[in-house]
């Protein structure tokens, strides 16, 4: 475990802002630049920063592998599920017009949900890929030098 004081304090200070910015980008994507992809990547960057500074163990405790695996599938299912829901209520696949009382509201809701699905998947995949790389190194280190390496 690293113990650089400055890094730890600054990272702790930054984390809430990164998360807040991610949420802003996610849900304000309709009005300004942003959307599911960008927000997902920002969230993932936040978690990766956390993992780099506080160690993989702590990061895995915040975001266990099970949740990440679940999230990877959940995002895709949410996206596809919105399409199926539209089919069920009598529209075309991914035709959001039928989701609310009028077409514009339906579009709003549909786009919001779809972007949320994209965001969840992108976050989970990026964090998962990073964790997998890092953990791979850890297990490789176990084999070679008994796991004395940090991270």
């Amino acid at each position, binding site marked *: 475990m690293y113990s650089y004081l400055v890094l730890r304090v600054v990272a702790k200070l930054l984390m809430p802002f990164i998360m807040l910015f991610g949420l802003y980008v996610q849900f304000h994507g309709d009005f300004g630049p942003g959307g599911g992809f960008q927000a997902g990547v920002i969230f993932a*960057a936040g978690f990766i920063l956390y993992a780099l500074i506080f160690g993989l163990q702590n990061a895995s405790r915040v975001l266990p592998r099970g949740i990440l695996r679940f999230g990877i599938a959940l995002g895709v299912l949410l996206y596809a599920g919105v399409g199926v829901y539209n089919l069920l209520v009598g529209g075309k696949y991914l035709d959001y017009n039928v989701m609310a009382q009028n077409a514009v509201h339906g579009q709003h809701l549909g786009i919001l949900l779809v972007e949320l699905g994209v965001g969840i998947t992108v976050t989970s995949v*990026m964090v998962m890929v990073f964790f997998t790389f890092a953990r791979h190194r850890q297990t490789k280190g176990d084999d070679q030098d008994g796991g004395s390496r940090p991270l």
Partner: protein
Amino acid sequence: MSITVCAILRIRNLYAVVMLGSIFSVMAAAIFVILDAVDVAFTEAAVGAGISTVLALGTIALTTDREKKPSHTKILPLIMVCLTGVALIYGTLDLAHYGDPNAPVQTHVGPDYLRDAPVKTGIPNVVTSILASYRGYDTLGEVVVIFTAGIGVILLLGNWRHIGRRREDKDV
């Protein structure tokens, strides 16, 4: 930008190459802002300069950070590249000029989207509305691509043998 690329070509220390790649991405993002593509610039800065750099550094940590001296001559690839480049530059002579409002690209679907999208979806950011609504199928397919890539990485590096071995230890 070109200078950075030339440096990437020359330098054999892979750490330096990856960091230069990151700088390259940030400059690409700046160019996208100049060309009015704020969404794209945002993504490029976050993805290119952030995530892929971290992943490439992870790979270097797992492998090696020195590139070996090339064993064979590089004349043939250079000739190939020059020929292709000349052909492509010849091709650009017919392209529409930078910022030309009468170019074919600008006269077909683009204006329709700009006119209809805000009215039909009630969302001022046209890029978002096209991404999620008009081209919903594309984006769905793309999310599936990310999903597949994530699964692929997990399968490739997920230490399945390790888990199996641990279970055997427990049984013993």
